């Protein structure tokens, strides 16, 4: 190999080495900075990542804070009662209300109402028909109205007994029956309450629709309330088919409390609808129990006035006919309407004669017995 050739090879090697080093320096600076090209073009599409250095608060304490607030996380487990919340804050409220005011105030409210009614009966006695019965009766409630009333009443009593058992059973019934005995009853009460509830709700709505026309408030009711409904003393304020008190029972009791209990009952009964979180369920259960207790309190009054409290009132709902004297005393305006409509009071003998004519399964009036 000649000297000249050796010199050119060495020069070429030296040149290629120089270029390689230069290329390394250039690429080392250029390649990483090339990412700026992509960063600038795609900055609007990539999510802005929050790194701990950049966020104002510590992400870990934020996480514990949101966990305490009851915000949900991610969980792999699945099932109808699996929740993704670390803590359920509504639970303690539910417990405090249910075991606090609901049981204590609610329970004593019912006891006091019952005692007050008993005391009232013992002190004042039954409200008699002035001047005794006339022996002549007129129709007050049709058969279908009475059937509906007693259907709702039966449902109400069943629901009240089972519902009260579930709320107060632990305080009142476990000391009597023991745990096993009460648990057996609670099982029955729970399923009965759940099965009777929807039927009752439907019957209740039909009854509200049917009776709403009798319960439209008017000026007569104002007079009736001013005179205290004639509960104390011998005054008898005028009233139409329904007096002021009955209208209060209808609107406050049957309508407001009844529909509240029905709606909340349906929500509590069908957790499979899916929107019921624990918070909603506990709220609904408390509303349901509150409406129920208030309604039962009003019901005690309604039941007393309709049976023991007033002579001649119950037969309007049992056999459908009321004594003329009772009608004049308690519902004078309604009695005038009845007479104006052309209906004539009928005596007991005449009713009996009619019954024999049509046979035992005949006409509606006078079928329900005493």
């Amino acid at each position: 190999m000649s000297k000249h050739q050796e010199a050119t090879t060495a020069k070429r090697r030296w040149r290629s080495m120089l270029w390689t080093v230069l290329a390394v320096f250039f690429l080392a600076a250029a390649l990483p900075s090339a990412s700026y090209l992509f960063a600038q073009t795609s900055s609007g599409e990539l999510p802005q990542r929050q790194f701990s250095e950049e966020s104002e608060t510590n992400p870990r304490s934020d996480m514990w804070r949101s966990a305490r607030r009851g915000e949900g996380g991610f969980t792999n487990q699945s099932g109808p009662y699996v929740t993704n919340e670390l803590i359920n804050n509504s639970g303690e409220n539910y417990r405090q209300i249910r075991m606090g005011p609901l049981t204590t105030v609610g329970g004593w409210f019912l006891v006091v109402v019952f005692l007050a009614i008993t005391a009232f009966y013992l002190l004042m006695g039954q409200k008699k028909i002035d001047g005794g019965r006339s022996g002549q009766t007129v129709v007050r409630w049709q058969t279908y109205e009475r059937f509906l009333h007693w259907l709702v009443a039966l449902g109400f009593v069943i629901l009240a007994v089972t519902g009260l058992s579930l709320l107060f059973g632990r305080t009142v019934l476990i000391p009597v029956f023991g745990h096993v005995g009460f648990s057996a009853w609670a099982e029955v009460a729970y399923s009965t309450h759940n099965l009777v509830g929807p039927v009752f709700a439907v019957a209740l709505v039909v009854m509200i629709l049917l009776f709403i026309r009798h319960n439209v408030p008017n000026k007569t009711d104002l007079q009736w309330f001013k005179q205290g409904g004639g509960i104390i003393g011998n005054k008898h304020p005028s009233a139409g088919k329904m007096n002021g008190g009955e209208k209060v029972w209808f609107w406050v009791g049957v309508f407001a409390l009844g529909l509240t209990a029905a709606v909340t009952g349906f929500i509590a009964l069908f957790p499979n609808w899916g929107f019921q979180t624990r918070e909603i369920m506990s709220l609904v259960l408390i509303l349901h129990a509150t409406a129920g207790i208030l309604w039962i309190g009003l019901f005690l009054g309604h039941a007393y006035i309709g049976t023991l409290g007033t002579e001649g009132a119950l037969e309007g709902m049992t056999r459908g006919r009321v004594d003329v004297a009772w009608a004049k005393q308690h519902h004078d305006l309604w009695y005038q309407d009845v007479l104006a409509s052309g209906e004539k009071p009928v005596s007991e003998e005449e009713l009996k004669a009619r019954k024999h004519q049509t046979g035992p399964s005949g006409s509606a009036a006078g079928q329900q017995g005493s």
Partner: protein
Amino acid sequence: MMPKRTTLCAVAVVTLMLLAGCSDVTMYEPGVYKGSGDDTASEEAAEARADDLRERARTAHTDR
């Protein structure tokens, strides 16, 4: 005089109560749990296993 139906109802209720008295139903005594009892829930049972469980926690959960 009481109406017939009321009398019958009263008789039925009294009979049921008398029949209930014939069985071995005992009323609840306050403070006595009549459900199935749990022997492992008692103070003695808890005391007996406490040392074992403490030892186990020390060996199982500390870093070795």
